[in-house]
Every structure is written in structure tokens, then in C-alpha cells.
């Protein structure tokens, strides 16, 4: 894969969707590379960073809270401020919110149950780096698998997200009580994005759908 763009995949203790993301990155012809939670890295080497799902630190204290303080996050912060595209999936989304790189927080599902199902998502505002308008399918069908995926932000925060076009995806049929049906958001600059659904689990038809592919093809 020499010559193809290098995509950094972060690994914390308890990350468990890292392999799936690796396969997705390879499937679209990009070069994945692991980034260990205890290490800093040279930001300029990467075309994009992905924080996969899982249960970093066993969700101790608060989902994403301890991972948000891991040494590697200093480099992620630096990358984000330099405009490098950063994508957080599920637990990765929780980490980005808790670290302040994305607005809001993910709290326990309204119905308390862990939800594992396919959902239909509507693209509200396009993210230039991941599944931009040109390649994204809307509605998109992606799987979710989370116990703490209810997006919350205070009223002024929600208004700001709406005014600044930072709402990325919404659920067609809200499964977890998320505010304003929000499934994914972006930072104001739109280079940092996070969502609860798992695009890496929908790369080929045999997986049940391939709507997740566009999240990665847009990086090629």
C-alpha cells in the first residue's frame, strides 16, 4: 500500500472495533496504522485519524472520560487544530465529546437497554472529509450498538449546533432518546466529526449493507 494515504487508528485499553476499522480502511485502498493510547505521534504523517468504538477503560467513571485524558489525545488535539480530519465512531464519539473536541455528551439510552440494530439516518449537514454530500447516501442504513448513545446538549448549545450547521446525521426513528434525533455532530470547522452508528460494519453487501463505505472512500 505504499503511496496511499496513511490513516491513524487509535487504540485505547478496551477499544474493540479497531480491527473492523482497519479492514474498512484497507478495503478502500488506504493505509491504516495503529496509534497507541500512551504514545504521542507526528501529526503531519496522517491524512486522517479515526477513534473506533468499544469500551475504553471499561466505561469506568463516565464513557470516554478516561480515554479523553490519555497521552495520545494531546496529538489528536494538535491534529484537530491543524485541520486534520478526525472521526469518532461510537465510543470514539464519546471520547471526542468528553475531550471537548466535539460539543455535547452521550448519556445512557432513554430505555436503559443496550441497543443493537440497524437504523436509518438522514444527512443533515455534509462533512467535507467523511461521507460528503457527493458520495453519501441519504437516508443511510447503518448498524448501532450502544448503551450510552443518547446525545445531550443544553438548549443554547443545541441552537448553536443548528445555527452553525453542525448537526451531521439524525435518526429517522429515534432509538435512544437523543436530543433532536441527533446521531452525529461536527465541530464548527467541520474537520472533527462523530457519530454513534458504525459505518465500518457496513462496507460490503454481505454485511447487511454498504452505506458505510462512503465514510472512508471520501478519504482516498
Amino acid at each position, binding site marked *: 500500500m505504499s503511496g496511499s494515504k496513511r490513516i491513524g487508528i487509535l487504540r485505547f485499553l478496551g477499544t474493540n472495533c479497531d480491527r473492523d476499522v482497519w479492514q474498512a480502511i484497507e478495503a478502500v485502498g488506504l493505509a491504516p496504522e495503529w496509534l497507541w493510547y500512551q504514545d504521542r505521534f507526528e501529526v503531519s504523517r496522517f491524512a486522517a485519524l479515526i477513534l473506533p468504538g468499544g469500551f475504553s477503560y471499561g466505561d469506568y*467513571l463516565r464513557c470516554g*472520560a*478516561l480515554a479523553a*485524558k490519555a497521552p495520545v489525545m494531546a496529538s489528536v488535539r494538535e491534529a484537530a487544530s491543524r485541520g486534520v480530519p478526525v472521526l469518532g465512531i461510537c465510543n470514539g464519539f464519546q471520547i471526542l465529546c468528553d475531550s471537548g473536541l466535539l460539543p455535547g*455528551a452521550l448519556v*445512557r*439510552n432513554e430505555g436503559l437497554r443496550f441497543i443493537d440494530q440497524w437504523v436509518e439516518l438522514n444527512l443533515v449537514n455534509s462533512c467535507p472529509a467523511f461521507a460528503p454530500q457527493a458520495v453519501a447516501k441519504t437516508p443511510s442504513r447503518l448498524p448501532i450498538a450502544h448503551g450510552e448513545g*443518547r446525545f445531550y446538549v443544553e438548549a443554547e448549545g443545541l441552537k448553536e449546533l443548528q445555527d452553525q450547521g453542525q448537526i451531521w446525521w439524525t435518526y429517522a426513528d429515534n432509538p435512544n432518546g437523543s436530543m433532536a434525533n441527533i446521531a452525529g455532530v461536527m465541530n464548527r470547522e467541520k474537520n472533527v466529526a462523530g457519530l454513534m452508528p458504525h459505518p465500518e460494519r457496513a462496507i460490503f453487501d454481505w454485511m447487511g449493507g454498504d452505506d458505510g463505505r462512503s465514510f472512508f472512500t471520501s478519504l482516498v
Partner: protein
Amino acid sequence: MKIGVKVLPRSEVLDSQGRAVEKTLAQHGKTVAACRVGKYVQLEIDAPTQEKALEQAREIASFVLYNPLIETFELEVVK
């Protein structure tokens, strides 16, 4: 010195855990006006005075123990 950090979900955030506990209590005839579920963190801090220990605990709580968007915290000196 032991300092306890009590973390509770903010009142404007729906506390689904608290609601589940409340419902179970009600099913057993133990009705309460409200129930919220939080967490308790005990820190053992070496500090010359109680004020210094509380100050450190407050800094630590703000650093990682609570998320101001969804939670509040209170400190207590553990006797």
C-alpha cells in the same frame, strides 16, 4: 485526609437510571417523590490543611471526575 466527591446528573438531564430505580421502588409500594442515581468518589489527599485538600479535590473533580454539561458535584470531608 479523605475527601468525598459526590457526582449527580443535572436535574435537566433525564436520569434514566434514577427513573428505573424509582419505578421499581413504586412497584413495591415504596413511593418517593424523586430518585437520582450518581456516583461517589473518595480521594485520599496529603495536604497541610483541610482547605488545601478541598482545593485539590475541586481541581481534580473539574479535571475529570465530572462533566459540567451533564453533572454537578459536591465535596465533603470524610471524618
